[in-house]
């Protein structure tokens, strides 16, 4: 099915099941520990051997020699895989560095060996007996120092320009020119990258924790040099991904190689301290933003430049993208430059581009509002645009940023905000309000599904879509139930298996809308098959487990009485996303309290208002948004992979050193979804929401801290050491 004209009324609009806050259908499995993740398939794999990964101890250079003798002699060892003995390996299309290093080492903790043993303890012990003689060479690890050598990236749109930014900025009566930095960040999902692999003849059967099943199949096949048809990849439950499991990683490739070498099923999980330097991360950025405005607060010129780094052949963090679309302004430019850094591979993390881009842009907007003496909510509203500012003939499909800001301000009690920074005190606390816009583009992607109507009337959906905590199982079941007119408990959903039709997968917040649109397409076909079977017209009505047309009223299950009916289709897209700019919008409001003596920041309350098309399930969608807000708190206040600029690695490579928010950091979070449908996005009229939720959060907090303390911090995270020497004098309280 092709979606190339705006959606009109369709069966989803009935909203008998879709749009309701139903509990997750996989909830009973997840809350009882019966959902099986990649390392836990004891039912299917009787006696797996255990693989333990050894990571490189240098950041750049080569391995002169590896002495495996002691490790091989260690008890229980079945095989040791290294680049020397693994045979020729390719590199996955989505990987920047190779997954098994040696003799060349591209980054610290790049995998260089897998020890396979009877038990986990034996594999771990033997891995420690491997002696490696390295030939280290100097590398580049510091973005600030590499900035001058950064060049125009080969992909994407490194430079954009409309009007004459230079002159317009120079002529603007009010100007801002500020530079912001965001640090390297880690996905730090709770389930480590893990895989269980076995060989069935020349077919690789692999359970792996991966967001994108079809990409995974392709890259496992390419890396191992086997046909795609010989890879059966399954990823039914995934313990979090956030972009960190978009790509095949060392655990999958090494489990496959280990199983081949040991002639046994092998399972491999990356040890937590290896994950931070072995896998991908969100790269640090340096961002310069210039804004020129009239005294009345109309933006006339806006420029956003960003620098980031990656391994050779890598990509830039597209931190300037939202600035091309978010605010009006006749004269504008953006630029991205990419430096070569020898840290681990930089890649997508929740809202790549926009998340760090909004961290900078939305502080800049706050600074500009302050310079102008305009309320920051009003300043944003005044510079709204309903068309793509670079192509004014191209409207947004739906854009309710102004509503998000206005409704949010009302609900949050923004009116009570003291217009003067550092002006509100509550005992030992400095109190501050902060706001930021939220913005994330909506992407639509081809997605397929197969739907079965069983003799028992049960509808079964099969698609290689994944559920990484997003609620895919549930919204897909809701979609199928709505389309086939059956209750939710009569739908079975099977996901994450390469035997099923290729889906959008989970990434870029495209999964919810795209995968359900694929199910919509397959169900449309199944409805036709059912109608034909029952001798009813194709426009028959499906509801309450019945199919009705004219005076006929038949149970839907009757169509399958003599045998299961199966339909398969996919949704693909025309050019509606070219003709209309499709984006999601929101506003974040935050109240913080900063300890007047120590500079410690506590988040008191947070509100997100989102306009993101139809919300397929308000319960799971809200969870996506509060989860993103929570990650935004981490980005604002604590998350920072600290680079050892001499040895070339992230120093704080575990969950004690890399500080993600914990319970005590997060208050009750409020989320409001505006009632909206977007007929340009798909027949579901939905858009993504999981990444929108993080965009702008950190800036809203940084702005609130500025409002509380009067201190403007432009370098994330906003830790107390960046505040403490500039806090308002404690004495002031006594003086007044």
């Amino acid at each position, binding site marked *: 099915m092709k979606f190339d004209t705006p959606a009109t009324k369709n069966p989803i609009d009935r909203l008998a099941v879709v749009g309701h806050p139903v*509990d*997750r259908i996989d*909830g*009973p*499995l*997840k*809350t*009882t*520990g*019966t*959902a099986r*993740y990649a*390392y*836990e398939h*004891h039912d299917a794999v009787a006696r797996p051997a255990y693989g333990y990964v*050894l990571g490189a*101890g240098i950041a750049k250079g080569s391995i002169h020699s590896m002495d495996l003798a*002691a490790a091989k*002699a260690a008890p229980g060892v079945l095989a040791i895989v290294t680049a020397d003995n693994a045979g020729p390996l390719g590199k996955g299309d989505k990987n920047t560095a190779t997954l098994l290093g040696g003799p060349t080492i591209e980054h610290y903790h790049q995998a260089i060996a897998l020890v396979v043993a009877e*038990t*986990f*303890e*034996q594999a*771990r*012990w033997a*891995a*420690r007996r491997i*002696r*490696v003689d390295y030939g280290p060479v100097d590398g580049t690890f510091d973005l600030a120092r590499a900035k001058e050598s950064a060049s125009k990236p080969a992909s994407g749109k490194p430079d954009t320009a409309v009007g004459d930014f230079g002159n317009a900025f120079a002529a603007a009566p009010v100007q801002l020119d500020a530079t912001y930095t965001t640090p390297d960040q880690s996905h730090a999902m*709770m*389930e*480590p990258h893990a895989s269980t692999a076995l060989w069935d003849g020349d077919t690789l059967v692999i359970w792996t924790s991966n967001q994108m099943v079809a990409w995974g199949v392709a890259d496992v096949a390419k890396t191992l040099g086997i046909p795609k048809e010989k890879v059966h990849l399954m990823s039914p*439950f995934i*313990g*979090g991904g956030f972009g960190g499991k978009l790509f095949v990683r060392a655990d999958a490739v090494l489990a496959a190689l280990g199983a081949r070498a040991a002639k046994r099923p092998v399972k491999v999980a990356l*040890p937590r*301290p290896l994950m931070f330097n072995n896998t991908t991360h969100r790269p640090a950025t340096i961002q310069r933003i210039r804004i020129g405005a009239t005294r009345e607060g109309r933006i006339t010129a806006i420029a956003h430049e960003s620098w980031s780094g990656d391994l050779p052949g890598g990509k830039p963090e597209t931190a300037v993208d939202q600035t091309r679309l978010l605010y009006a302004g006749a004269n504008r430019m953006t630029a991205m430059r990419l430096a070569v850094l020898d840290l681990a591979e930089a890649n997508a993390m929740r809202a790549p581009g926009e998340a760090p881009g909004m961290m900078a842009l939305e502080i800049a907007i706050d600074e500009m509002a302050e310079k102008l003496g305009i309320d920051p909510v009003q300043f944003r509203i005044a510079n709204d645009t309903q068309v793509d500012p670079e192509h004014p003939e191209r409207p947004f499909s739906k854009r309710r940023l102004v509503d998000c800001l206005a409704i949010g301000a009302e609900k949050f009690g923004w009116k009570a905000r003291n217009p003067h920074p550092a002006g509100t005190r509550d005992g030992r606390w400095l109190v501050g309000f902060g706001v930021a816009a939220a913005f994330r583009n909506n992407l639509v992607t081809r997605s397929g599904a197969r739907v079965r109507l069983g003799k028992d009337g049960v509808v079964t959906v099969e698609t290689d879509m994944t559920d*990484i*905590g997003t609620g895919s199982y549930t919204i897909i079941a809701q979609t199928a139930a709505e389309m086939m007119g059956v209750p939710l408990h009569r739908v079975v959903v099977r996901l994450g298996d390469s035997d099923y039709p290729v889906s959008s997968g989970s990434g870029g917040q495209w999964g919810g809308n795209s995968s359900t649109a694929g199910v919509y397409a397959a169900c449309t076909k199944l409805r036709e098959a059912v109608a034909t079977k029952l001798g009813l017209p194709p426009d028959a009505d499906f509801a309450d487990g019945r199919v009705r047309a004219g005076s006929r009223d038949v149970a839907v299950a009757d169509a399958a009485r003599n045998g299961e009916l199966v339909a398969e289709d996919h949704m693909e897209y025309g050019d509606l996303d070219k003709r209309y700019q499709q984006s999601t919008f929101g506003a974040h409001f935050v109240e913080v309290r900063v300890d007047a003596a120590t500079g410690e920041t506590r988040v008191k309350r947070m509100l997100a208002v989102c306009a993101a098309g139809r919300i397929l399930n308000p*319960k*799971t969608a*809200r*969870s*996506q948004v*509060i*989860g993103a*807000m*929570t*990650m935004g708190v981490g980005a604002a206040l604590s998350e920072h992979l600290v680079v050892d600029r001499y040895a070339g690695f992230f120093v704080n490579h*575990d*969950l004690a050193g890399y500080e993600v*928010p*914990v*319970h*005590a*950091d*997060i*208050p*009750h*979070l409020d989320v409001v979804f505006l009632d909206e449908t977007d007929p340009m996005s798909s027949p579901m009229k939905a858009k993504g929401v999981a990444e929108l939720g993080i965009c702008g959060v950190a800036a809203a907090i940084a702005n609130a801290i500025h409002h509380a303390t009067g201190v403007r911090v432009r370098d994330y995270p906003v830790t107390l050491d960046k505040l403490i020497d500039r806090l308002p004098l404690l004495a002031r309280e006594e003086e007044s």
Partner: protein
Amino acid sequence: MNESDAMNPARREALALGRDMLVGGAAACWAGSPSARAASPRRDAPVMRKLTLRVNGAAQALELDTRTTLLDALREHLHLTGTKKGCDHGQCGACTVIAGGRRINACLSLAVMHDGDEVTTIEGLGKPGHLHPMQAAFVRHDAYQCGYCTPGQICSSVAMLEELRHGIPSHAAADVAAAPAWTPDELRERMSGNICRCGAYSNIIEAITEVAGAQP
């Protein structure tokens, strides 16, 4: 570990050995350092011990390499994979189980330290179709997303409410001598050893509050 454990020399020895091995394992990512030395078969040979765990009410006789953590005994030997491994270092709480009535990080405890102990895992609290009130509250409040931290959150919260009931103080209390208040801040403080990277905290506290209110 209780007093009688400390008095048991065999167990002390096992502990010391286990600790040494764990440190070695954690440092393996630095391998290639000069500290790696030739294998000595005597030292390499796994030390095996027989033990019995009472898991979710059933006695489980095991013979384990003494380096085996309680977490791996549950997951890899008893195939009770509901208890999760998030870090293996006591930093995330995904492995929380209830041993002898107290919540512990199963990754920081060797199985041999629990010979004869009563251990409750997520599988022992409830099953699909027969959920424990806390499991049901988690479903109702959508107090999870990927589900990987969830068994740990649930085991932790069930044991945590017992701690509150017994008046065990926390950092959040203004007066450690007074009976702890059942406030959201108190719950948040006490649950902070259980990381949820999906960020379900707001919902988790609401689920726990509901269960706490139902059984004061």
